């Protein structure tokens, strides 16, 4: 651990490397070579030299902090070795239930097949934007093409995760709703007419 450090200390760009470390540990997005050069008030060639030193110092197997070159520039990440520990740190508690709006939206998409936001809103009688966003984030629904016609609205359908969470072998295994209508089309019509009554 000591020897390579001495190497860096001997290097003339040592102080620049420390400045770059500092910038990267504060940054909340990857930093480009230009941004680093501007902040460090140094030239890009020396920045790249310093980044080379840092890439060696902060690499897998050697450090828990790893310097990564990504699309937007350079950023620190956790080493793969520490993946389990990071997983435990960021673990989210299991959520027990969904909101009524989420259940309704999920039921509409599940039973009626791919639907766009305007269609969900038409059937529910209220806008579905935040419910749709929440279900997308949880991965219970996903985009599935667009409505016909130019500029058609994005459609959503349920995902395999949805089937797992609801313990369904397939989407066809949803409880039957014969009491509401013979076909999907009939159910849709019925929901629509009720929704119109609600908003009237």
């Amino acid at each position, binding site marked *: 651990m000591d020897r390579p450090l001495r190497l860096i200390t001997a290097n003339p760009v040592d102080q620049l490397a420390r400045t770059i470390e500092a910038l990267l540990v504060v940054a909340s997005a*990857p930093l480009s070579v230009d941004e680093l050069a501007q902040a460090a008030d140094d030239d890009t060639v020396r920045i790249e030299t310093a980044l080379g030193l840092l890439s060696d110092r902060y690499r897998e197997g050697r450090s828990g902090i790893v310097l990564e070159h990504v699309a937007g520039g350079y950023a620190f990440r956790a080493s793969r070795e520490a993946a389990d520990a990071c997983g435990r740190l960021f673990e989210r508690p299991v959520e027990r239930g969904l909101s009524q709006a989420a259940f309704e939206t999920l039921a509409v998409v599940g039973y009626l097949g791919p639907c766009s936001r305007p269609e969900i809103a038409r059937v529910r009688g209220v806008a579905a934007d935040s419910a749709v966003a929440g279900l997308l984030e949880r991965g219970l629904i996903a985009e599935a093409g667009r409505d016909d016609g130019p500029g058609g609205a994005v459609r959503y359908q349920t995902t395999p995760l949805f089937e797992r969470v609801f313990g369904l072998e397939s989407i066809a295994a949803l409880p039957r709703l014969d009491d509401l209508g013979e076909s999907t089309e009939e159910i849709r019509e019925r929901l629509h007419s009720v*929704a119109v009554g609600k908003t009237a």
Partner: protein
Amino acid sequence: MAAVFDLPLDLDAFEGPFDLLLTLVLKEELEPAEVDIAAIVISFVERLADRDELDLEACGEFLVLIASLLELKARALFPEEDAELAELEPEEAAEELARRLAEYRRMKDAAAWLGERLAGERERFFRVGPAPLAPRPDRTLAPQDPQQLAAALRALAEPPPQVSLSHMGLRFPPVGQFLARFRAVLGRRRRFDFDAEVEGLNRIEQAVAFLALLELRKTGEVALEQAAPFAPIRVSRSDEERKSEWTVRSA
């Protein structure tokens, strides 16, 4: 005098001459509670110090104004304490005031310490919020019952309960109908019993009939008598003389 009213002020809540501040406070466009009165006093004293002679009239004027402002502010800040503090003996009040001033003094010292501390920490940079390449955990949902989905859809298919609009359908008979009816009765008899006359009508009709009765009373066509509260109301024709008298007066 001018020394008071055009006194320039630069406070947290206000910047401008003293008289404008007073105007805003009196118009309730500026909360007296927001005004730092000590700063106004300091500005005034500084201005006095800048001038060679002491303008006693201005000082008196200033004292009156600042005292009024202080009272307004105290009332605004501690509306509930008027009674509480009024009950204190002067010595107790002084003790309480000393306690409060000491507490405020400590807080001012603490504020000064925080200010110096923050200035000393200007070189400490750290990230607030997530790291650029931090893991993005999935949200996990406990297993759910598919029957809840069916229930949700059934609930959507349920027509909402009809809001009762029955009160909109109430039919009010015209007052004129009862005016005509009562005039007709009085044409036949000098007096009649209101309760007997409206017996058998529904509550709405009875109410409108009563309005008609009041109307007749107002125009002086009838006189009303009631022996006791809730006793039957006697309606009688008023004398022809009184009626004409009223007609003349109201013309």
